[in-house]
């Protein structure tokens, strides 16, 4: 299949206008020695029907959540995506456009991003949000860079922070000159140090944390602020209908993985990096920021603003190198949040919490299974200890149609993280408990 529209006649006339004899002549700047002789070692082109059959076969070789009941989380969750979300975000005027360099032709994307920023501020009770980053992990990286812009170097990370976030921090830190220091948290949460050295730029806490546990964010905030550092909170947007927002808990910068807002699991991406902060940080923020302004008639409109922060203007002095971002995911998140409203978001949170609590009771009642962190309060995810290897139990349950959770080897090879969204039913939870009992018997 081909999309280039040229007829032989077009090619002939265009070459004539250009003033060259052949298509090959257009490439004569390429030194002979560098020219590829003969075709690349790739299959030949195929038709639309063939490529869709090929892709269909690959897709069918996967076991998707259409046939596995999902209790896996650890940062990516099987929430319900309302049909209206992608019926709208999927409109081609949105998804075939690009960065709004000509704002007059891009008011749709710009206004939607302005609404996204506004909703993120409403959720977090912080002053300002950008218009998306790659994902939750890279959003945390950017938050740390914002905090380090002050000149301090060290980065302390609470023990309850997801190790894959820490790993991502470590990778980027190698370039920026820091190594995240992870605090002890034997109880699965807390572990607030007595005090802070003056060279600490940021303290990072995740709430609910990687084990789903509700952290004592305020203590971390007091620690950070007492020591002149910034508090960065990693939050879960689906929790903010019921849980106190980062702004109220003392966070200076808050970041999140926004996948659970209208985005499909997509085997890991594209997801949505959310970053919000207090106003004083606005000029240190990475990425696109949309602002409202007026046109020459004095009517309101939207533009990209504070671009002096960005790479295309500030180059090596930019706050970040990000250019292409996750705008379409932000559009989907905006539509999903508008679909939910304050009531729906609260209902969503209540359902997650209630079903997770029920699942906790059901699973810890399975002989041999116990809570990894018995009396820690949690939101929609929790950790259990199973007899034997968590990974093996998980695999055995796959054969019974369940994706039972995600192993947490860093706290023990027998630990399994179990996430329960509003999408799960009591019947499914009971069935999982039953199956787990059988598997362990």
């Amino acid at each position, binding site marked *: 299949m081909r999309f280039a529209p040229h007829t032989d006649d077009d090619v002939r006339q265009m070459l004539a206008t250009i003033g060259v004899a052949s298509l090959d002549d257009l490439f004569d700047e390429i030194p002979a020695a560098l020219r590829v002789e003969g075709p690349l070692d790739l299959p030949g082109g195929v038709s639309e029907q063939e490529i869709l059959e090929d892709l269909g076969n690959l897709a069918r070789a996967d076991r998707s959540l259409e046939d596995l009941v999902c209790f896996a989380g650890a940062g990516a969750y099987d929430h319900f995506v309302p049909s209206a979300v992608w019926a709208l975000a999927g409109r081609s005027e949105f998804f075939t456009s690009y960065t709004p360099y000509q704002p007059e032709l891009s008011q749709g994307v710009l206004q939607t991003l*302005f609404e996204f920023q506004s909703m993120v501020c409403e959720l977090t009770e912080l002053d300002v949000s950008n218009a998306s980053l790659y994902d939750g992990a890279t959003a945390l990286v950017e938050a740390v860079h914002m905090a380090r812009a002050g000149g301090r170097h060290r980065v302390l990370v609470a023990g309850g922070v997801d190790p894959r976030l820490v790993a991502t921090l470590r990778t980027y830190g190698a370039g920026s000159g820091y190594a995240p220091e992870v605090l002890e948290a034997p109880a699965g949460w807390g572990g607030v140090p007595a005090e802070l050295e003056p060279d600490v730029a940021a303290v990072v806490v995740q709430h609910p944390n990687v084990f789903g546990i509700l952290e004592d964010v305020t203590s971390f905030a007091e620690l950070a602020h007492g020591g002149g550092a910034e508090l960065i909170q990693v939050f879960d947007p689906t929790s903010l209908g019921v849980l106190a927002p980062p702004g*109220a808990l003392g966070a200076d910068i808050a970041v999140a993985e926004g996948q659970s807002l209208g985005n499909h699991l997509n085997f890991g991406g594209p997801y949505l990096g959310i970053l919000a902060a207090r106003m004083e940080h606005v000029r240190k923020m990475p990425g696109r920021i949309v602002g409202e302004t007026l046109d020459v008639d004095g009517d309101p409109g939207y533009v990209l603003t504070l671009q002096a922060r960005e790479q295309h203007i500030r180059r090596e*002095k930019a706050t970040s190198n990000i250019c292409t971002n996750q705008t379409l995911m932000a559009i989907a998140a905006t539509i999903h949040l508008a679909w939910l409203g304050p009531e729906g978001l609260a209902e969503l949170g209540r359902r997650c919490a209630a079903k997770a609590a029920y699942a906790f009771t059901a699973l810890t009642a399975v002989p041999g299974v116990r809570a990894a962190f018995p009396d820690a309060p949690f939101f929609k995810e929790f950790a259990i200890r199973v007899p034997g290897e968590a990974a093996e139990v998980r695999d055995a349950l796959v054969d019974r149609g369940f994706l039972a959770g995600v192993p947490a080897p860093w706290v023990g090879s027998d630990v399994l993280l179990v996430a329960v969204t509003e999408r799960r039913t009591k019947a499914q939870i009971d069935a999982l408990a039953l199956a787990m009992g059988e598997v362990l018997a």
Partner: protein
Amino acid sequence: MRRGAPVRGQGPPAASTIAELSRPGRRAWSFAPLDVEPVEVPAEHRRASAPGLPEVSELELVRHYTRLSQMNYGVDTGIYPLGSCSMKYNPKLAEVAAAMPGFARMHPLQPDATTQGALELLWRLERALCELTGMARATLQPPAGACGELTGLLMMRAFHAAQGAPRAKVLIPDAAHGTNPASVRMGGFDAVHVPADDRGLVDVEALGRAIDDDVAGLMLTNPNTLGLFERDIERITKLVHDAGGLVYYDGANLNAIMGRTRPGDMGFDIVHINTHKTFATPHGGGGPGAGPVGVVERLVPFLPVPRVERDRDGAFHLSEEAPASIGRMHGFNGNFAVLVRAYAYVFLHGADGLREVSERAVLNANYLAALVRDVFPLAQPDLRPMHEFVSTSVELKDRTGIRVMDIAKRLIDLGYHAPTVYFPLVVEEALMVEPTETETRETLEGLAAALRQAAAEATTDPQALHDAPLSAPVRRLDEARAARQLKLRW
């Protein structure tokens, strides 16, 4: 007159946000009745006051975002000739593929046994990209080009460190895209700019002088930012290699050379690809994209984890075992659904198809250049551009005072999205034009006519240019005001 213009649906004429439609008690949401005991969030953790999200019916939601979508220009509504962005047709079939439950409804942490299809897709795509670029292995994890750049630079850093001789500097041309210097800094290097010669190519002499044993490497696009092929590329890469440095290929312009030449053959060690450019994955209003990075054999140990590996029995798995790896660049597996679209594009076209893509991309750019260069002279008139060209309207400005921005806005009233303007910074009043291969001759001629008309109006009807746009949902917007009186939320 609105001849042929879209219907304006009902709705407030001026920009009004969804918040303004909100009424307490309206709702779109629905949930199944709670089938378990409700639980209370511990008091000390409870939210005090509800967030100010809008309360609207589903129909209001649908109308609001349908209206906003119609206030946006996209490739599906017209040519979008942004330089360096390869705004080509985004095949609808790729959307069908990406929506398949076997891709869209996959959790990133499922056990490998349940993800063999997804892993095989990544495996095949990695190999195809390596063949296309002349690299040994690649990571598909970076979610965009800039992240690919940083990935490459961190590998550069790890490589030199492994040699026991860390290096501090990375060379980039003056005209380089902003992400290059920004990534260099995030990679922990100092960016050193190398000048261009009077042909707009890398000044090889100057480069030679700039290179020393503290130079970790050089970043280059080829064709370069002016759309010109760096014909001395072999000398350039050799210079860097001889000094122990590595050469990074910024693949934003790969659409010019597919099947014609390969970065690997030119001597590049690291290559990133922008799938949302070369492989037509939709730009999504600003993203998502994907920025796979390929490397030569000696850099393979440093590639990020996880990597897709294949066991002897043919099964695929995600491997974290790579002691020298720089680590992970993304929370999970990168922008997988974007890579599905890239796979669809690459294997739909195949070897000859991709070669034809570049052929027609270069044909279109040269044709359009030929139609307008007398009015908008090329920044480098002596060299043939490839998939894009850079013109300057500095003469027009000096003669009439009309800025290239006025031309851009006038194009809107003439029914076209403008090319990139004021970039590259090294060219005054720059107009950077990349039509891509999917545009027809007639469309190129229409755009050329519009550009020529706008230029002519600079003398005949300057007011039309100053007033433009008149036919867009808003008139020209005050960006200075936006930055001065920050209004970043409702």
